């Protein structure tokens, strides 16, 4: 508007070029004064108008964004094409009634053999532990694939915890994952240690699969049913390298199937249940594992919730001398008190064990303090009655303070 006024003044001054110099000067002066007055009025009008005008609509609406693809990264990530990168550091201070030399030599007859060089990846030492630093990366590869990797690093160890590619755009609610990944059966298995509700692994998991759970190279196919009720079906074919249950060694041997379903009982209470069947081979025969899980969660307000979660597993493992028939379970209750505090308790038990003592159990309790979303201090006490030393069952008492932090583009955890 102002520009037009100045321009018109300029044009008229050119048109008037033939008039006398005095006249011209006069007119120019008059015009410039007029422009000044007009500009002032305009400014004033604009000032009055500004807060109540529809300015957002015109300035913010960018039609170039409407093709879609350009907006993909802006919505959920900070960097244009760099993968989302997160660093997770987990360390602990442990007090325990058994010294470090003895501790690693434990066994659980029928489940875990005595091996003084046994690898204990989490909280092995009385005193201080740097458990691991983990680097997680995620990115879309192209319109068809996503890539995800977690590199797990310990003082003398580098491990590819997971590295897989998954499809983005298959029809009919299907998704395929390929690479090395954690099996999605049950509740604990797929979660990384830093996402566990308790720092110690449930003994049925450590007994059947060891500290890393069931994790292998393989392929996974999942299908989500187009129903009101959540229903997910998964099948996995994996290498089967897990020494505690499989490790056939001659060829790939592990197959999983699982079904998960969830209903909202009320607006704030939901139930998630799953059943799984895992079939594989060990060097002496077949191994079959049947598992079931149940989670009930109630939301009390935005930051308070109560979650009760249980898993049961049964294993039939053929061996030359005697087929192992074993089962175990855990049940846990976690209460999120507010944005900063949580507390919880868990009971673990190995109920059936035809190769050793049964009813080996563990009691765990914890209090958690999260000063912020990405840092967590957890004080956890456990009384573990599942460990044997030199053929004798011995109670292991442990008090642990664990610090976990996550920095960078760390994705939200699922339910």
């Amino acid at each position: 508007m102002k520009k037009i006024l100045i321009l018109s003044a300029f044009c008229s001054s050119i048109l008037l070029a033939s008039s006398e110099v005095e006249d011209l000067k006069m007119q120019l002066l008059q015009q410039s004064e007029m422009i000044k007055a007009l500009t002032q009025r305009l400014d004033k009008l604009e000032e009055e108008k500004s807060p109540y005008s529809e300015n957002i609509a015109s300035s913010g609406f960018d039609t170039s964004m409407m093709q879609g693809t350009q907006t993909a990264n802006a919505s959920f990530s900070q960097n244009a094409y760099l993968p989302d990168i997160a660093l997770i550091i987990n360390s602990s201070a442990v007090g325990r009634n058994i010294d470090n030399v003895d501790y690693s030599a434990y066994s659980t007859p029928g489940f875990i053999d005595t091996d003084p060089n046994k690898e204990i990846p989490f909280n092995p030492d009385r005193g201080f532990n740097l458990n691991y630093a983990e680097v997680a990366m995620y990115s879309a590869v192209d319109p068809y694939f996503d890539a995800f990797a977690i590199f797990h690093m310990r003082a003398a160890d580098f491990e590819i915890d997971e590295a897989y590619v998954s499809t983005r755009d298959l029809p009919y609610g299907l998704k395929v994952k390929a690479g090395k990944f954690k099996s999605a059966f049950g509740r604990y298995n797929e979660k990384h240690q830093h996402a566990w509700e308790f720092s110690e692994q449930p003994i049925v998991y450590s007994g059947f699969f060891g500290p890393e759970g069931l994790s292998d190279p393989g392929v996974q196919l999942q299908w989500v049913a187009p129903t009101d009720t959540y229903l997910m079906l998964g099948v996995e074919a994996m290498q089967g390298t897990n020494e505690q249950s499989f490790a056939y060694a001659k060829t790939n041997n592990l197959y999983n199937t699982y079904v998960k379903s969830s209903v909202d009982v009320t607006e704030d209470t939901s139930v998630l249940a799953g059943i799984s069947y895992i079939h594989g081979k060990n060097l002496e025969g077949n191994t079959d594992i049947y598992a079931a899980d149940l989670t009930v969660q109630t939301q009390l307000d935005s930051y308070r919730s109560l979650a009760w979660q249980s898993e049961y597993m049964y294993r039939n493992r053929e061996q030359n001398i005697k087929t192992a028939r074993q089962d175990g379970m855990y049940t846990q209750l976690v209460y999120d008190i507010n944005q900063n505090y949580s507390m919880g308790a868990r009971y673990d038990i190995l109920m059936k064990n035809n190769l050793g003592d049964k009813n080996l159990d563990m009691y765990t309790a914890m209090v958690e303090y999260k000063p912020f979303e990405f840092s967590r201090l957890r004080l956890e006490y456990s009384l573990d009655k599942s460990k044997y030393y030199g053929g004798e069952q011995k109670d292991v008492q442990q008090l642990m303070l664990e610090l976990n932090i996550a920095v960078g583009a760390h994705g939200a955890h699922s339910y």
Partner: protein
Amino acid sequence: MKFLLFLMLTLASVYASLNVQTTYTSLGEIAKKVGGDKVSVNVLANPHYDPHFIVPKPSLISKLRRADVLIINGAGLELGWLPPLLKGAHNGKIRPGAKGFIDVSNAIKLQNIPATVSRAFGDVHSQGNPHYMLDPYSVIPAARLIASKLSAVDESNAEYYHENLDKFLKNWKIYLKGLDTKMRGCKEKNVVQYHELFNYFLNRYQYKSYGNIEPLPGVSPSSKHTLALINTIQSKKVNMILQDVYHNQKTAKFIAQKAGVKFLILPHDVGAVDKTDSLEKFYTVISNKICQ
């Protein structure tokens, strides 16, 4: 036979409308206005809860599984809960970047974009303040974006969506005129908030926000910060404390009592408090409370 016919008819009617999911209620209201009877709209987040932290229940996955269109607020507001749900839904139609994925923040000029981003400053919204739906004027660009996106997904009804849009915007502008007139009469304009949740409304009507009860975004109140805030309230002559429905009200009430100022609970979205079940009522309730 009759049953079969009935089944086919119901199926046809179900599939005739576009399945639209929105993350929050205000976006759902706009989608209903623009989509009319050609869409069925469902809102994922319960407006009584903190919009930053919605529990990613598996039932929400099944809602997303069958969606034709997903409308999100964007600017990071759903970062804490939506990505795992989208990952679990296996629905290419609504994955970020697809035709059916609508990020409304793309149509909005965001405010409070931080110059430096670090979590040392708390859970800062790195792309700018995402609570733009608190500005009643944001409804206009949001509705326009939704109309053009719905038209792209469902071309045969493009004209219908644009007719709805024009009708809706015409009424909305009339509503805004009334609201503006009313807001011009407000005298007390100095506030303190819990989180920078109401900035867009406050900026629209020239209120001044002198501080937040949370010391840093996402960090719980501390006594040191609270005492400093009471001093600020007194020295800056703050008139009222604005709080959302989902945070603990203890600190705000304490401050209000100590400093002798008003304590108000404002809705952050349609349906967050009673009698805010439409867009008009939502903004009217805010204006009634804040401009007494």
